[in-house]
C-alpha cells in the first residue's frame, strides 16, 4: 500500500514537472482520478493520432486466463513528442506496464499517465496534467 502510494506521488511529481500539458476533453467527465490502475500487457495496436494517441493492450487475468483488450488514452502526438516519444517508440508486440486512471463507466479503458517500456518510464502527456 505504502509502495503504491509512493508510486502515485512519484507520478504526480513527474506530472508537475512536465513542461507541456495537453488538454483536450474533460478528464474527469470520463475518468476517475481516484481509481488508479497499473496494468501489464502486450500492445496490439497504436493510433498515433490527434487529439489523443490511443494504444491497445491485451491483459491476461492471472486467475482465469481470460484476455481483455484495453484501450489506453494518452496526449496528442505533439505533447508526446515533447515528452520524448516518437511515433515508433511503441509497436504492436511490445510488453508495457501502464499506470493511469480507470474510466468511470467500467469499460476496459484507461487514461494513461505513464508507460514503462524496456525499463524506461515515459510520461504520457495525458489530459490529467497540472493546471493553473
Amino acid at each position, binding site marked *: 500500500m505504502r509502495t503504491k502510494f509512493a508510486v502515485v506521488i512519484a507520478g504526480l511529481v513527474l*506530472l508537475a514537472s512536465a*513542461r*507541456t*500539458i*495537453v*488538454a*483536450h*476533453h*474533460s*478528464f*474527469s*467527465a*470520463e475518468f476517475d*482520478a481516484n481509481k488508479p490502475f497499473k496494468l501489464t500487457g502486450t500492445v496490439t495496436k497504436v*493510433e498515433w*493520432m*490527434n*487529439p*489523443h494517441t*490511443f494504444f491497445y493492450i491485451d491483459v491476461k487475468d492471472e486467475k482465469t486466463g481470460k484476455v481483455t483488450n484495453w484501450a489506453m*488514452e494518452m496526449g*496528442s502526438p*505533439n505533447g508526446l*513528442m515533447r515528452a520524448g516519444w516518437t511515433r515508433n517508440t511503441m509497436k504492436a508486440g511490445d510488453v508495457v506496464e501502464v499506470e493511469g486512471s480507470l474510466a468511470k463507466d467500467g*469499460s476496459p479503458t484507461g487514461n494513461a499517465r505513464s508507460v514503462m517500456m524496456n525499463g524506461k518510464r515515459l510520461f504520457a502527456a495525458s*489530459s*490529467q*496534467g*497540472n*493546471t*493553473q
Partner: protein
Amino acid sequence: MTTSLRTALLSATAVVVFSSSAWVLGAQQAGGEGAAAAQGQGGGRGRGRQSGPVTPTPRLPDGTVNFGRVPGEKGVWAVPYITNMAMRVVGKDGQVLPEIQQAQTAARAGGGGARGGGGGGGRGGSKSEPWIPWMPWSAAVYDYNSKNESKYDPEGYCLPPGGPRMMATPYQMEIIQQPEHKRIIMIFEGATHIWREIYMDGRKFPGDDELNPTYLGYSVGRWENPDTLLVENKGFNENSWLDYFGHPHTDKMEVVERWTRPNKQTLHYEATVTDPGAYSRPFTMAWDIPWRDGGELPEYICQENNRYLNRLEDDLGQPIFGPRPQPGQKRPAGTR
C-alpha cells in the same frame, strides 16, 4: 448539434436548479479545484517557467512592443492551462481580488481538491464564486457544468475555445505583427489550429446586422500607448465557454483585451468581459504567458480521431453524436 445540445442543457439545467442547493453545500466542503489549482500564482502574474535572465522588452522600429520573435531567433508563447477564469479576476489595481486569495487560502487550509487535470477535485459551482456577477440562468448553467465536470465542453468536441480562452488553452501560439499591412495575426498550434486577425487600420466595427457571429469574434486593435496593445472584440457566437469550468457567455459579449510584454520572457494578458446577456456587470481577468525560447508550432488537427465524441452520451444515456440505437438495441459496435 447546437440545438440538441441546447435542449439537453436546458432540460438538465432545470433538474440541477432543483437539486443544486444541497449539492453546492457538499461541494463547498470539498473545496474548489480552481482555488487550489491557482495556488502559488501570486496575484495576477502567472507562473513563468523561464530559466535564465530576464531581458528587456523587444520593440519594433516605431517603438511599439514586438510581441513576436527578435530577428534571427525562434520562440513561441507557451500558453498556460487555466481551467477556471473566475480565479483570475483582478481589481482596478491589476491584482487578483482579495476574496479570491481568501478562497485560495481556505481551500489550502482545508486540503481542498488540488487534483489537477482537465478537472477533478471539488467544484463548488456558482455559489463558491460570489465575486462573479451572475444572472440566475448563468449561475444555473455553470452549476450544471460544474456538477457534470464539464462533460459537454465544446472544446472536447474540437470546437475553438474562442475569446479569452484562446489564451488559457495549453498549446503554443505566436503573434505576428504586420504594421505595413495594418494588421496583427495570431496563430495557434492547438485548440483547433486556428488564427486570429486583429485589424489595426482604424476601422469601425460593422453594424450588428453585418457582424456574423463567430467563435473568435471580430477584432479591432490600436496602440493605447507604446507599451499596450488594446484589442476590442465583438460578434461572438454562443458556441464556446469562457473556460474549461464552463462559465457561459452570450452573443452580447464584448471583450476588451490589453496585451503587454513587460519583458522579453513574459506576455501579460488582460481581458475585460462585458456580457449583459449573462453577467450583471463587467469583470476583468489577467494572467501571464511565458515565452518558450527556440519553440516552433507543430501541426495539430484535433478533429483527426476524436473518440470522445463517439463515447459521449447525454444525461439520458443517449449518444450525442452518431446514430441513436433503436429501442431495445444496443449501441453499434465500435462507438465505445
